[in-house]
């Protein structure tokens, strides 16, 4: 039996623990909804108001995450927000009259995009634009409207 040197054992333990920790951090933080650009396609949607929608926010169909917001910019001509949606290639049969609306997860949760398929037989393909959109509902505007309406009723 060869004697195990304390130094070798210590260094081995140290490196193993370190690599295990790196692996743990990587595994724990990989988002299962992550997609690579090979297995996805892009759609574009224009909104008057996106609220605090962020890049990488989920795109959901019937509540199931099927994609991510990949880019947000502003069209300098019509002053609307242009949102790029990166959608899993598995879900490539959206009718052209599909509706995109910005929804809120819970009362104070983050914003995400909910797609509601329409009934058209033509399908959306890569880099198409979704015509029908609903802007984000801003809670503070809603409260403001409610208060103003209340005061005029009196």
């Amino acid at each position, binding site marked *: 039996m060869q004697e195990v040197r304390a130094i070798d054992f210590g260094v081995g*333990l140290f490196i193993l623990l370190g*690599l295990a920790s*790196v692996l743990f*951090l990587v595994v724990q933080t990989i988002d299962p909804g992550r997609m690579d650009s090979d297995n996805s396609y892009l759609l574009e949607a224009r909104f008057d108001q996106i609220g605090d929608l962020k890049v990488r926010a989920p795109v959901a169909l019937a509540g199931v995450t099927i994609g991510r917001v990949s880019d947000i910019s502003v069209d300098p001509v019509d002053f609307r927000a242009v949102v790029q949606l990166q959608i899993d290639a598995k879900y490539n049969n959206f009718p052209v009259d599909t509706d995109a609306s910005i929804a809120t997860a819970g009362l104070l949760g983050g914003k995400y995009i909910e797609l509601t398929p329409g009934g058209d037989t033509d399908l959306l393909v890569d880099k198409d634009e979704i015509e029908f959109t609903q802007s984000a509902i801003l809670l503070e505007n809603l409260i403001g409207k409610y208060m103003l309406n209340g005061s005029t009723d009196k």
Partner: protein
Amino acid sequence: MNLTIRDCLHGFRGFAATFGSFQLFSIRLLPYIPRIFARPLLITEQLYTIGALSLVLIMFGGLFVGMVLVLQSFTTLAEFGSTDSVGAFASQALVRELGPVVAALLFAGRAGSSVASEVGLMRATDQIAAMELMAVDPMERIIAPRVIAGVISVPLLAAIFSAMGIFGGYLVATQVLGVDTGAFWGHINVRVELGQDVVNGFMKSVVFGISASLMAVFEGYHAQPTAAGISNAATRTVVITSVWILLLDFIMTGLTMAKV
């Protein structure tokens, strides 16, 4: 009045001179870096004294930092009814900031000071001069292995610190505060990003590892060859490394934020 301005100038000149000689020292070390991998045993030895012996401190530190982080953030999150995301909050803070920074600070205190005093004592007892006489380059035999071992150790220690912190947070959140286990891990999964959080934290700890180990060997190599000089070198290593780590952390955080 005249005296104070002159003092300031003198102080600045001293600082600039030290800073400059540190840069020159680092550049002088560069050609030795690839050569040292021909002698892996020298690195292994240093990995043991610098890295493996810091394990207990780092694991203990990480565990309790994670536990305290969860405990502290829980009360605030409870006000908003979002206690489930306590794990995501704690692990984001750990992976991005606390892991790299606190691990590097602990490393400077535990390993940096010992390296500085060890090299300083070699200088004081003329061991370095003796090596030069025997045509053994002290940069290659003493300095380079310690720097390489430090650069390898600090990122690993930071990862261990973060992982232990998340584990400690998990224990407190689920066993003491009653957060659901699935919700704890699920929020971490969704909210902590591999690219933005883990990789950035890793890059930080690599930079901290380079600066911490370079400063330790620099202070030791240039220590006054007296008892006071060696203790001075150890103290300076901890103080200067800590300041630089915090400063670099701010700069690197700013750089990564700018990209977003």
